[in-house]
């Protein structure tokens, strides 16, 4: 007998390798990962076919707030967990299962929760996947990098122009390269209105209208940040 194996990984690999996958990551929290994940998924769904957004930030999920999924929405299951549908966008995260109640997950448990969702999803009909990853070198990110991420995956690293974020991002990008990933793209986002556009790298400017657009895909589509993200998408 072999040791006990986790069958989820084989299915996750098989399903992800068939699709375009973007991991939205950052060295720090609060730089705009969730906001950009939503805008990017929306743009992908308009321009490149049905897109699945996965909130892998299971310890602090808030993608549902940005795209307007009520935490009380329930999910179906036939050939797997059915993503919640909003037009061309599909959503899954831990929130429907916890009903937005607080749930303290240790790093190793967060890994299991994410493997569980990815391992049991009904992926049919989706061509693109955007994964909102917890901040930093989380257990969840390391597990995705070690076990399921292939050559078709783009790793987007979000940073603000702030000293604090830039310092952390340098360490972070270096580590991703140490780990052997080449498909790493840096994007600057300016949630603090610092206004300093970096010399190189993609850039999303300060956009105070985002705050009131959260919760409505239609309003998000009208923001300047969305227009900028659509342009960014052409360079990905």
């Amino acid at each position, binding site marked *: *007998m*072999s*040791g*006990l*194996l*986790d*069958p*989820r*990984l*084989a*299915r996750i*690999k*098989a399903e992800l390798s068939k699709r375009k996958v973007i991991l939205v990551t950052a060295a720090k929290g609060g730089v705009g990962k969730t906001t950009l994940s939503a805008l990017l998924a929306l743009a992908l769904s308009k321009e490149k076919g049905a897109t699945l957004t996965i909130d892998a930030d*299971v310890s602090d999920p808030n993608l549902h707030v940005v795209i307007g999924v009520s935490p009380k929405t329930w*999910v179906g*299951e*036939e*050939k*797997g*967990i059915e993503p919640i549908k909003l037009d061309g966008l599909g959503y899954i995260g*831990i929130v*429907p*299962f*916890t*009903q937005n*109640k*607080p*749930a*303290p*997950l*240790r790093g190793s*448990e*967060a890994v*299991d*929760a994410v493997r*569980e*969702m990815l*391992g*049991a*999803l*009904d992926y049919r009909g989706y061509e693109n996947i955007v994964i909102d990853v917890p901040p930093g070198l989380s257990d969840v990110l390391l597990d995705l990098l070690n076990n399921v991420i292939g050559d078709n995956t783009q790793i987007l690293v979000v940073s603000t122009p702030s000293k604090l974020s830039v310092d952390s991002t340098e360490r972070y990008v270096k580590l991703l390269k140490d780990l052997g990933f080449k498909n790493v793209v840096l994007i600057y986002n300016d949630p603090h209105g610092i206004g300093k556009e970096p010399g190189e790298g993609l850039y999303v400017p300060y956009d105070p209208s985002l705050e009131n657009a959260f919760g409505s895909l239609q309003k998000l589509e009208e923001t300047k940040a969305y227009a900028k993200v659509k342009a960014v998408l052409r360079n990905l």
Partner: protein
Amino acid sequence: MHEWAIAEAIVREVERNLKRTKVSSIRIVLGELQNIDKDILDQYLKMMIREVAPSVKISYETEEALFRCRRCGLTWKLKDVHLTDFEREAIHFVPESVHAYVKCPRCGSPDFSILKGRGVKISFEVEEQ
């Protein structure tokens, strides 16, 4: 129920291992928290595995859930706590969501570990080729 996806995962894992060995039997350990319908899983699995490993034998075991509090050290079982049908349903999808509904029966902490019974694990009996 999402037994379909679980069956598919098991078949993918068998396939992966077939590259190196011949799999003669599969042992499947079902965690209590995942609340799987063994007959449905078996039915899907037999259907899907035909093309991959036609004569493979499949056996099932259930593993009782066991929790341990990270604050006070108490261990307890699923039958020691009360869960609504809805909560059971949520937990069967993602066992970790149990942290939203269960607290340590002694000290009230939601910071506990699931020592046993969370998900599906498998092992193979193989014949080297």
